[in-house]
């Protein structure tokens, strides 16, 4: 039964329900992708848009493309994006300074005009053709309740009429892999410094803390990494909190916050 539904694309009423639920989600996700300050949020919202597109493909009798959309786009491409985001630094927020004066407003106007143009052009032409549907190409037909199926129909086309393009794709993928390796490769100009050399340098430079850094503090209610340890005189041992948390995010908790949290815990007793 499920095969027949996948091939037929579901009943029209179901399709409308799927569309009117997922289309606003996709549009909101796309808008969020444009306006999110954090690049990681943008990536997650893009995943949302891609997953709803996969659902649309299923509703449009294209189950093969729906699966490829989830595996290739949401699975591989977006994870690659997130990987590079983590390498580059999660905190790389956009600068709000406009280099070109009025560029945002101009861009918004251009986009609005473009949208109006596209929608008007679509509305003007769409009445002229009637939807044929994919039943003739991949089934199901009246005589055959399942038909030959989307995957088989695509495979027949791909390995007959489009076989040359398909083979050219393999050359493209090999070239892309090679290009990524060339771009990511860095020639070492100086010999690699060993750990022993780095440690000798650090001791010779002086001033550095030679012992291991102190661990984050342990309070009654917190042993999290963002809680700094206290020195004997009550001041904070800032080196006990990872540098990343204190400087780039300002997430290290100070003594006052910890003490007030403690008071808040003790008050009801």
């Amino acid at each position, binding site marked *: 039964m499920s095969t027949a539904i996948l091939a037929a694309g579901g009943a*029209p*009423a179901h399709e409308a329900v799927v*569309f009117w639920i997922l*289309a606003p989600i996709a*549009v909101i996700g*796309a*808008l969020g*992708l*444009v306006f999110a300050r954090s690049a990681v949020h*943008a*990536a997650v919202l*893009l995943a949302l*848009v891609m997953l709803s*597109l996969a659902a*649309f*493909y299923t509703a*449009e009798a294209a189950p*093969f*493309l729906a699966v*490829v*959309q989830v595996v290739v*786009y949401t699975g*591989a*491409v977006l994870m*690659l*994006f997130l990987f*590079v*985001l983590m*390498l*580059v630094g999660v905190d*790389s*927020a*956009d*600068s709000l300074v406009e280099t070109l004066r009025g*560029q*945002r407003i101009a861009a*918004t106007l*251009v*986009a609005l005009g473009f949208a109006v143009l*596209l*929608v008007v052009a*679509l509305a003007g032409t*769409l009445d002229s053709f009637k939807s*044929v*549907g*994919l039943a003739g*190409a991949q089934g199901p037909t009246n005589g055959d309740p399942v038909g030959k199926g989307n995957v088989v*129909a*695509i495979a027949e*086309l*791909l390995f007959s009429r*489009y076989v040359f*393009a398909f083979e050219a*794709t393999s050359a*493209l*993928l090999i070239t892309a*892999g090679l*290009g990524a390796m060339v*771009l*990511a490769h860095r020639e070492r100009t100086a010999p690699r410094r060993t750990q022993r050399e780095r440690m000798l340098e650090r001791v010779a430079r002086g001033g550095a803390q030679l012992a291991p850094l102190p661990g984050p503090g342990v309070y009654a209610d917190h042993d999290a990494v963002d809680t700094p340890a206290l020195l004997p005189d009550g001041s904070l041992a800032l080196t006990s909190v990872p540098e990343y948390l204190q400087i780039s995010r300002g997430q290290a908790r100070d003594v006052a916050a910890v003490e007030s949290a403690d008071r808040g815990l003790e008050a009801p007793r």
Partner: protein
Amino acid sequence: MSPDYYLYLSAVLFTIGALGVLIRRNAIVVFMCVELMLNAVNLSLVTFARINGNLDGQIIAFFVMVVAAAEVVIGLAIIMSIFRSRRSTSVDDANLLKY
């Protein structure tokens, strides 16, 4: 349901992607917006396949996905190498050819 709505949705998503390419500065986000535009076009290709009753549109969407995967690999490698030399992914900072 009439497939026209998919085409309108595709037009809207494409426009939002283009808007993102125009106003965002972070090269990675710009790149994600390009992906959104490619996805929007894929949606319209799949819809056209359904309207016309043959699978060529779906095949083209499949090839677009393959090319997009290759493009992402190369694009992100370029962004990484720019980040390595300039410590920034802002498209405003890559201006050595400007002067």
